[in-house]
C-alpha cells in the first residue's frame, strides 16, 4: 500500500473534511462545555467563567457520589447480563449455517432502526399491569384453573382466588431490563466479529486432545474472543452509564441515574456549569476505561509479537 507521504494531495483531500467536521461539531462544543464547567451562574442566562473548581467540588458531595455509584451498579449489571446473553447469541450465530447468518445478524440489528423512544414505549406496553406479559400470564392462569377443574381440584383455588398481575414496570428491574434490551446489539456485534474470525481448528484440537466442552470453552474460545469481549463491554457499559431516558420512563421512585441529574441541570435547575462538571466527570471515567482498554490491547500485541 502506498504511504500517504507519496500522495499528500490525496491524503489531505480525504483527511481534511472529516477532521474539520470533528473539530467544528465535536471538539469545539465539547471545549465550550468544558469551559462552562469552570463557570458560575451570574443571573438567569449569564455564566461567568471563574476558573475555580467549585462545580467539581460540589459533585464530590456524598449525595452525587452515591448517584454515580448507583449508575455504575446499573450499568455494570446491564453489561454482565448483556455479556452472558450476547455470548450465547453470538456463538449461536457463528455456528449457524452460513446462509442463515446474515438473517440472524439482521434480526439483532433490526430494533436499532427504530427510535429509542418508540422502543421504550413499546416495552412499557409489554410490561405494564395490563400489558402483553401479564395478559399471557393471565391466560396461563385460566388454563391452569380449567385443568385443575377437570382433575376435580377446582374448589381448592390452588392458583389463588384471582389472577395477581406481576409488577414489572416502574422499578429497578424494569430499568435494567430496558438497558439490556437497548444495549444488547452493542455486545453481540463485536462478540460475533471476534468469534467469526476464530480458527475453528483450535477447538477441534482442544477437543481431540481430551479437553471437555467446558474446558475448551473456558481455555480456548473465551481467550480467543477476548478482544471482542473487551470492546463489547466498553461500548455497552459507557452508553448504559449515561442513560437517562430508560430510568425516566421505566424507573420507579428510586431509579435516578446520574444522567437524570445532568439532564435536570440543563433544564429545570438551569445550572449549566454544574451540569457541565457532572458530564465531564462522567467523560473522564469513560476516557479512563478506554485508556485501560488500549493499554491492554498494546500489551496483547507485544506479547503476540514476542511469540
Amino acid at each position: 500500500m502506498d504511504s500517504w507521504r507519496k500522495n499528500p494531495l490525496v491524503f489531505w483531500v480525504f483527511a481534511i473534511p472529516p477532521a474539520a467536521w470533528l473539530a467544528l461539531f465535536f471538539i469545539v462544543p465539547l471545549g465550550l462545555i468544558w469551559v462552562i464547567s469552570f463557570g458560575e451562574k451570574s443571573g438567569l442566562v449569564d455564566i461567568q467563567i471563574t476558573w475555580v473548581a467549585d462545580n467539581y467540588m460540589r459533585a464530590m458531595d456524598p449525595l452525587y457520589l452515591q448517584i454515580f455509584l448507583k449508575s455504575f451498579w446499573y450499568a455494570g449489571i446491564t453489561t454482565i447480563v448483556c455479556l452472558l446473553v450476547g455470548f450465547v447469541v453470538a456463538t449461536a450465530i457463528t455456528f449457524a449455517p452460513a446462509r442463515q447468518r446474515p438473517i440472524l445478524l439482521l434480526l439483532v440489528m433490526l430494533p436499532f432502526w427504530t427510535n429509542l423512544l418508540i422502543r421504550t414505549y413499546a416495552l412499557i406496553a409489554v410490561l405494564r399491569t395490563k400489558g402483553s406479559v401479564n395478559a399471557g400470564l393471565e391466560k396461563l392462569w385460566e388454563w391452569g384453573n380449567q385443568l385443575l377443574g377437570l382433575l376435580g381440584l377446582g374448589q381448592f383455588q390452588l392458583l389463588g382466588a384471582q389472577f395477581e398481575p406481576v409488577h414489572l414496570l416502574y422499578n429497578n428491574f424494569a430499568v435494567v431490563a430496558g438497558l439490556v434490551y437497548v444495549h444488547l446489539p452493542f455486545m453481540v456485534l463485536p462478540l460475533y466479529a471476534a468469534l467469526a474470525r476464530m480458527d475453528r481448528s483450535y477447538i477441534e484440537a482442544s477437543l481431540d486432545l481430551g479437553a471437555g466442552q467446558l474446558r475448551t470453552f473456558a481455555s480456548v474460545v473465551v481467550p480467543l474472543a477476548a478482544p471482542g469481549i473487551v470492546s463489547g463491554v466498553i461500548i455497552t457499559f459507557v452508553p448504559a452509564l449515561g442513560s437517562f431516558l430508560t430510568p425516566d420512563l421505566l424507573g420507579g421512585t428510586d431509579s435516578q441515574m446520574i444522567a437524570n441529574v445532568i439532564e435536570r441541570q440543563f433544564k429545570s435547575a438551569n445550572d449549566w456549569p454544574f451540569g457541565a462538571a457532572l458530564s465531564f466527570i462522567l467523560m473522564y471515567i469513560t476516557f479512563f476505561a478506554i485508556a485501560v482498554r488500549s493499554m491492554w490491547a498494546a500489551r496483547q500485541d507485544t506479547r503476540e509479537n514476542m511469540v
Partner: protein
Amino acid sequence: MSKDNRSRFSRRSFLSGLGAAAAGLKFAPGLALAAEPRELNFYNWDTYIGENTLGDFRKSTGIDVTMDLFADNDELFAKLKGGNPGYDVIVPTNDFVERMITAGMLEPLDAAKIPNITNIDPTFRDAAFDPGRKYSLPYMWGTIGIGYRKSRVDSIPDSWKWVFDSDRYAGKIALMGDAPTVIQMGMKYLGYPLNDTNPAHIKQVEEMLIRQKPNVLVFAEDNGQDLLLSGEVDVVMEWNGDILQVMEEDDDIGYIVPLEGGLLWQDCLCIPTGAPHPENAHIFINYLLDADAGAEIADFIQYATPNAAARKLLPAVYNSNPAIFPSQETIERCEVATYNGTEYTRLIDEAYTRIMAS
C-alpha cells in the same frame, strides 16, 4: 433569493389580499404593514391548537405557519436561552414569562396591533407576573389537581393528603416528576404559600415526600394521565387538561382541585426577542384571540380559555364543566407560581435530587 421564489411570494400576497378582503378586512391593519415574507414560526405545546386553526389562518391572511412542539417550559427556555433560533410566537407558562422578561428574552407587544384584546375577560387583562401585560397575552389557563379513578377511590380525593401523606392508595399513586411543581403542591398541603422559599419549609416537604416514597409508584414524566387511563395508578397529580383528555375516553375518571388549593397556571402568547417576523406575530396573536378562532381552539383542546367572546360561542357542557372551570371558591385557594430566583431553583433541585436518591 431566486426569481422564482419572488414571484411565488407576490402571488401569495395577492391571494392573501383577496382572503383579507373576503374576511371583511379584519386583518387590514396588519397587511398594510407587512413587508415581511408571509411566514411565521410558532413554538407551541403538543395538541394545543385547533384542528383547522393554522389552515384557516393561512386562508384569511396568506401567512404560512410552521409549528414546532416543545414538551415543557424547560425545553422552551433552554432552546431560546442561547439566542432565538427563529421563532416568532411562543407559549410559555406564567412563571417562565416572568423569567424571560427578567432575562430580556421577550419583545414588548404593540397593543394597537392586537384589537382582539377586548375579547379577553377583564380579570386576565392584567397579571402580577407581567404588570400591564406589556409582554404577554393569555392563551389558556388551568389548574393542577388530582386525577382519580372513580371506582377505585373511597370518596372523592379532595385533599393532597391522599397523594402526599397516606398509604390508603399505596402503590397506586403517581406524582409529577417536576421538581418545583411537586414541592410547591407539598407546600400547599402543609399550609404554606405555594411560592414559599423558606429552606426549613422546603426541607419539611422533602422529608414528607421521602416518607411517602414507598407508597408512590412513579414520579411521572408528563404521562400521569396515561398511567391513570391504563389502570397503572388510581390517583395522580396532573394538569387538568391532561386528565380532561383521558376523561373523554373513560367515564370512570374524575378530576378535583384539592381543598388546600393547587396551582393556577396561565399559558401566554409572547414574541421572543429577535423574532424574524414580528408583524406576522402580532397578526397571529390577534387571530388566536378572535372569538371564532378562540372558540374552535378551546372546543378542540378542552382547556379553559380566557377569551370571554369565545366562551359565549361554546356550549354549556364546556362552560359549566368543573374540571375546566373550577368554582370561584376553589380558584381563590389556588396560587400562581412566580419566578423565585436562582437560589430557590438550586434549593428545589437539590431537594428533589435527594428525594429521588433516598
